[in-house]
């Protein structure tokens, strides 16, 4: 079954902001309080809280019941596919390096051809066989 367009829109809108994406990435490493989440940003706590509300509405994060701190945590459900960002980043580099492997293989085969051609020049040529 397809998720509803409304839910997807909320997810989409929530992800459309770099600060909110960074907050999600932080929460992917574990729960954090509003103060902790605000720390790396040059932003007021109310501004961060506003972003957190958007993420909450989209169902991407929830508040833990734990004590007074009520740390936020990531809800993997709505965007399970996107929770392993580090893994994705790693995959991007793995893809880059695979392409680099291919480039290197090509360089090696070119070099080999050049060496073979040079060796060919110094080797006595075998007699050409006529073919009909």
């Amino acid at each position: 079954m397809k998720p509803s367009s409304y839910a997807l829109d909320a997810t989409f809108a929530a992800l459309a902001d770099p600060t909110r994406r960074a907050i999600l990435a932080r929460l992917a490493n574990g729960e954090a309080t509003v103060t902790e989440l605000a720390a790396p940003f040059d932003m007021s706590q109310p501004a961060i809280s506003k972003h957190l509300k958007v993420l909450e509405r989209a169902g991407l994060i929830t508040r833990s019941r734990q004590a007074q701190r009520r740390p936020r945590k990531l809800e993997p459900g709505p965007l399970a596919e996107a929770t392993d960002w580090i893994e994705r980043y790693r995959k991007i580099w793995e893809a880059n390096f695979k392409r680099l492997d291919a480039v290197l293989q090509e360089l090696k085969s070119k070099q080999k051809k050049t060496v073979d051609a040079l060796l060919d020049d110094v080797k006595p040529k075998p007699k050409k066989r006529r073919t009909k």
Partner: protein
Amino acid sequence: MTPAAAMKVTTPTDREVVMTRAFDAPRGMVFDALTKPELVKRWLLGPPGWTMPVCEIDLRVGGQYRYVWQNADGRKMGMGGTFKEIVRPSRIVTTEAYEDYWTGGETLVTTELVETRSKTTLSTTVRYASREARDAALKMGATKGLEASYDRLDEMLKGETR
């Protein structure tokens, strides 16, 4: 055949991220693939669908380099810096900064190539100005990965509304 080489990502100090990967080629060749624009353009691409229309490398100490990536929608992302040290074929030190991206600022990138039995281990050490900058950039890296899925989500949404 190239053996499946595993990439390693480690954080040896508060300010550093190190990425290590082995390649089945002598290091002179790997050095070329890292520094010749016509070769760099072919592999340093990032998420699927991105190409590198601009790749300028002035390979000398004090020289600049600049990369610009572009996706199918024409969205662009630029990055560049200055060569601080070049020891062919074993070491390159550059500064690195993204142009539009919200990142941890300028970093110092040390690339080292070690050859053993015609295989090369490439290690890239990215040093940030502070632990905070590194952590912000790691999140950013994660976010960059997310861009790809974000784009796919966009595609999915286009399908939904049709």
